[in-house]
């Protein structure tokens, strides 16, 4: 009985629970830090549980829609509306469910981690409030079936993340990074709002399914596409507009950096949703596909080459994050370039898309893990500068193990998860265009080289006298990193199972525009 209610209302609970816990967090914080930590952990655990229940339901029984304020949760079209969905609708298909799984797992691991990593700082009530708001925004962005709603959640994520990036003022440096991020985000969000206005003016609708079913691909639609693509590509840190990423990622607290990775991927999800669900084959798929591929290749190459000379470990990892985003764009871009051509789609298009989408979840896990290990090292020695580190492998053994797992995964070494998704991208992209696959492999090798250097300078070498008393990171931080490390290994050992249960439905949900429209508007 109560189970049925939870399953039926889960899309609403997904937003309501973290919002409720965020709202009460400052009041609970007045009682004691201990109670507040428990409150936040319980809130995040409940959110993750609801997200996983909803994802399970979607994978088992197909796309779910949830209509706010209707008589029944799936009552999308009021009888007297003339077939127009007037209410706010959440449309959760397997692609959204996959993003919810990512946010749920990393969110939980990070909250466990930050309970000990942030304990020495003040103002933690606002920290956790903003953290929960960020989770709310990310979950909303990936669940919503309404464009304006997407904009609102995007702004919630921007405001919360900007606050969190600036959280450790750090003589103003963190505020500078946050300001750069926030000004760009705001301008980007206004571009998206302008595009939404264009859609509304043309099609009298805000619902993604409704606009998709009426899509004409006129000149105005092209302008709107450019505005949305530019803004979201900036938000996900793809190359021509990547310059905020290293600043924001390196100045934010490490736990937040790991969450920013998930937030960037929610923007990436936005790009895919717009390209595949909103436009689909009305686009000139070859041209737009190649634009996405070029963005991806540029991100891969420039990201990794900028990463190699960096001295700040988090700045270096941030450039690698840009480079890895390139892989996702490359995989999905190849899928888009051959969309509508069924034989090519079957021979390599779907594999490329599955590789790109699989890389999203893998990247969130191992990159989150790497940022958390960097944070653990910072927690003990107080610097991110690679030249000042050394010999920490003697005292921080577990952190070192987790770092090795993350580093091998990002470099695409079997049996870790990065290998599984990169392999899918290589083999499918090679059929499409061998040069692209070779560039991807070279980037992978450079990534490995870069991480060998980082590993060597942080953990290897004799014990340094100034780090004599350094101990292992505290247990909650290790548990947080451990959750992500276990997933990295499991996904690497059983890629077949993960791909067939999680990734294939997501890729097909993304390409099958008709099913998405039918789920909201009824049979087409």
């Amino acid at each position, binding site marked *: 009985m109560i189970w049925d209610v939870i399953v039926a209302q889960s899309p609403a609970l997904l937003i309501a629970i973290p919002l409720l816990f965020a709202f009460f967090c400052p009041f609970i914080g007045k009682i004691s830090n201990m109670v507040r930590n428990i409150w936040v952990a319980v809130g995040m655990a409940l959110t993750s549980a609801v997200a996983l229940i909803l994802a399970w339901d979607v994978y088992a029984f197909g796309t779910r829609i949830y209509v706010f304020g209707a008589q029944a949760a799936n009552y999308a079209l009021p009888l007297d509306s003339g077939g127009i969905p007037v209410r706010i609708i959440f449309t959760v298909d397997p692609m959204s469910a996959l993003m919810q799984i990512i946010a749920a797992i990393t969110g939980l691991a990070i909250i466990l981690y930050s309970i000990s990593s942030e304990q020495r700082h003040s103002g933690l009530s606002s920290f956790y409030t903003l953290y929960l708001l960020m989770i709310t925004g990310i979950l909303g962005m990936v669940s919503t079936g309404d464009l304006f709603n997407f904009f609102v959640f995007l*702004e919630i994520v921007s*405001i919360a993340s900007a606050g969190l990036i600036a959280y450790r003022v750090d003589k*103003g440096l963190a*505020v*500078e990074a946050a*300001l750069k991020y926030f*000004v760009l985000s705001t301008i980007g969000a206004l571009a998206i709002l302008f595009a939404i*206005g264009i859609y509304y003016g043309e099609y009298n609708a805000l619902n993604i399914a409704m606009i998709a079913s009426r899509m004409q691909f006129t000149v105005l639609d092209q302008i709107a596409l450019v505005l949305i693509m530019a803004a979201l590509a900036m938000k996900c840190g793809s190359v021509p507009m990547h310059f905020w990423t290293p600043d924001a990622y390196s100045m934010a607290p490490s736990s937040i950096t790991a969450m920013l990775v998930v937030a960037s991927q929610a923007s990436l999800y936005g790009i895919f949703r717009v390209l595949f669900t909103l436009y689909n084959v009305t686009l000139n798929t070859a041209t737009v596909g190649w634009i996405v591929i070029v963005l991806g290749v540029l991100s891969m190459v420039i990201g990794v080459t900028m990463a190699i000379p960096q001295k700040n470990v988090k700045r270096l990892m941030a450039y690698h994050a840009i480079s890895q985003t390139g892989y996702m764009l490359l995989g999905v871009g190849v899928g888009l370039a051959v969309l509508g051509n069924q034989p090519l789609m079957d021979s390599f298009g779907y594999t490329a898309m599955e590789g790109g989408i699989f890389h999203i979840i893998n990247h969130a896990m191992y990159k989150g893990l790497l940022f958390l290990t960097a944070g653990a090292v910072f927690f003990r020695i107080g610097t991110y500068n690679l030249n000042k580190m050394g010999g920490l492998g003697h005292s921080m053994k577990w952190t070192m193990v987790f770092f090795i797992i993350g580093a091998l995964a990002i470099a695409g070494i079997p049996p870790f998860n990065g290998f599984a998704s990169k392999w899918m991208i290589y083999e499918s992209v090679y059929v499409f265009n061998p040069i692209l696959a070779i560039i991807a492999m070279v980037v992978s090798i450079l990534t490995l080289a870069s991480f060998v250097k980082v590993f060597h300078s942080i953990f290897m070498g004799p014990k340094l006298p100034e780090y004599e008393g350094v101990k292992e990171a505290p247990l909650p931080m290790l548990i947080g990193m451990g959750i992500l490390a276990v997933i990295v290994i499991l996904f690497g050992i059983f890629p077949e199972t993960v791909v067939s249960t999680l990734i294939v439905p997501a890729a097909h949900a993304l390409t099958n525009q008709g099913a998405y429209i039918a789920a909201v508007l009824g049979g087409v």
Partner: protein
Amino acid sequence: MFLNIPYIAVVVLALIGLATILFKRNLIKIFLGIVILESAVNLFLIALGYREGGIAPIYTNAPAGEEMVFSTVQALTLTSIVIGVATTAVMLTFAMVLWKKYGSIETNKIRRLKE
């Protein structure tokens, strides 16, 4: 022509806003540019919502045969204004902190991240 005036105003405002963001060095002026750009977008939304001869969708007041106009864009604009207030507040807070820490809000002085 007359009905296009709001759209012309949107373009002019957006250009003024973008030019201010790109060419001014003072943070407060950049924020003003963002606010102007935001007003352009809000004006665009509101202009879209106008339908000639339409009336407000209040059922009991509706004379027979009149076109009712759905008030979605007005709701969107209200939401967008509220979000705009929040973003402006956050940006001004950042400017305050930077002023305290750096003693300047000129963008060419705020670049310590790049050494």
